[in-house]
């Protein structure tokens, strides 16, 4: 049962939520809210942005300044919010299709710009809301409504993408590790710079049914059995890592942050007068 402090962050009047029973998104929302409560964030100074998809309905349930935008574009909206008012804590919640397909360009540029926003990417390997179509993170060989013979295109590794594009903080957990999610999201929010937390979750309804993990528990067990901490993974061979989910913190660097740099520019031009 969530704590009273967490419940205070919810717009509980909209419950029951639209997610399927057993969906992982609730676990992620709870972890984000625990992180916000622990960090002592204020609801009126916290912006939660999202795009389109199941994951993107999350802001509707959070009693903060919430911004439900267009498919894939939420980071660009969030960038405008953050640059306009740097005092705000800005969190962007995305799905895998939202983040890496239609929003891929915005994602890599938010990483490159290193703007102080936290992106929580809920990766369930599928387009859930629209009925189970393949996404850029659907594994090769997996089935989807638009991959009835199995996926043949190679998936993105969201964390490698974020690290390569220049994010300050990159971490991955799964919904079988809710305390890790909370820890990483907390670190991500506290990080001055663009921070990405990929949370591997499941869509038993759309992905699981076609891929031999039809019940929520099948997925949680799958994540538990196949997750490997990053430190251990560095000692394993490529063959040993086949089919494993590497979790942990991949990047935690102190890099120049975009808004801070812009504020310095304003200062140097006397624009604060």
């Amino acid at each position, binding site marked *: 049962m969530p704590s009273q402090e967490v419940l205070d962050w919810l717009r509980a009047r*909209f419950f029951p939520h639209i997610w399927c029973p057993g969906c992982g998104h609730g676990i992620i929302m709870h972890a984000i809210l625990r992180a916000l409560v622990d960090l002592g964030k204020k*609801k*009126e*100074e916290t*912006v939660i*942005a999202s795009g389109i998809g199941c994951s993107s309905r999350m*802001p*509707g349930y959070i*009693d*903060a*300044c*919430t*911004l*439900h*935008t*267009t498919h894939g*574009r939420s980071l*660009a*909206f*969030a*960038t*405008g*919010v*953050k*640059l*306009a*008012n740097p*005092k*705000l804590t800005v969190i962007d919640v995305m799905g895998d299709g939202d983040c890496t397909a239609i929003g891929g*360009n*915005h994602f*890599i*540029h938010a990483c490159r710009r290193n703007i102080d926003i936290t992106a929580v990417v809920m990766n369930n390997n599928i387009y859930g809301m629209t009925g189970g179509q393949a996404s850029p993170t659907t594994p090769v060989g997996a089935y989807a409504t638009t991959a009835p013979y199995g996926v043949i295109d190679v998936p993105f590794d969201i964390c490698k993408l974020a690290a390569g594009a220049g994010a300050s903080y990159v971490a991955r957990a799964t919904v079988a590790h809710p305390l890790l999610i909370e820890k990483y999201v907390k670190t991500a929010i506290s990080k001055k710079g663009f921070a990405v937390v990929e949370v591997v979750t499941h869509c038993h309804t759309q992905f699981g049914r076609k891929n031999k993990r039809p019940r929520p528990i099948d997925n949680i067990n799958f994540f538990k059995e196949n997750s490997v901490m990053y430190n251990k993974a560095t000692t394993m061979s490529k063959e040993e890592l086949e089919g494993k989910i590497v979790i942990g913190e991949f990047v935690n660097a102190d890099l120049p942050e975009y808004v801070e740099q*812009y504020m310095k*520019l*304003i200062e140097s*031009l*006397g*624009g*604060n*007068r």
Partner: protein
Amino acid sequence: MPKVQFWQGNTAVAMGALAAGCRFFGGYPITPSSEIAETMALELPKVGGRFIQMEDEIASIAAVIGASLAGYKAMTATSGPGFSLKQENLGLAYMAEVPIVVVNVMRGGPSTGLPTKVSQQDVMQARWGTHGDHEAITLAPASVQECYELAIEAFNLAERFRQPVIFLGDEVVGHMREKIIVPDDGTFTVLNRKRPKTRPEEYVPYKPDPEDDIPPMAAFGDGYRWHVTGLTHDEWGFPTNDPEVIERKILRLVRKVRRFRDEIVRYETYEVSDADMIVVAYGSVSRTALSAVREARSKGLKVGFFRPVTLWPFPDKELQALVNNVKAVLVPELNCGQMVLEVERVVSGRAKVFAKGLVNGELFRPSEIFEFIKEVA
């Protein structure tokens, strides 16, 4: 003291926006509008504002909407291909009622078309480009002076009506240089969006004031918590499937502009009182059209001139009032016949309507429009 400058239209748009209080610009390079972004990049940080070059046209309008939600007056500028890309988020700004200004410096199309050459082919896109019902407000400048003044007006309308305003320039007006008298700050009206007077816990973000159908707008960070979505929503901003609530929302979106159209509509006339022909022209074409009308007058032809400054809402009543005693209405424009459709609707058989299009990337010469007048006369 007002300053006299020798500016190009795009510079005047940027400087007018700054004078109106624009403090955020999100942009992406595109000819023939890039000078607006360049001017904003130079000027905004000097006044504590923000300029950001985004990764694409879609992102630049998205950032602008985000900044407006955080309380800033915000603008983006583009041309045809970019305007096409912006249509998705333009729709979100209509739906979520976010004041922004979008500049489209028109070039020839379709597609990449003519990056450095003029057209007026985006007139209907400015009206109906994004999907779904909405009421567009579109301003078309014809001079550098007007670029400055209408940029201020565009912000005033966006702030007043809580919606996007399209500033529809064209390559000729954007790139030509001429004298402009820059008014002193404080000598023109600057409007700001209505802020809520209620306490945060009582704030209903989409509850309109009955006198104008427009809900007061809080800013993220101002102490108010509210939800913004592109989904059709109720007065609290949350998605709805209730047919009554849906209809109320969409009808209000349209009504909030329509009921004030008399205050929005701008137009200009010349020698219309005794005219038996009227030339309707807008943007850069209106300049050569006016020359041609003057020429025709000097030759004894009773020709008048009508220039819509607001293309949308179109000054329909105002044009209609002039056409009862004329035999012909002439519409020269840099497309294959777009605004002429609106003129035909307005004239509604009271006079004959003649269209003259030009789509070769050039501007009409006054002599071409004069010939057009003579042909019809």
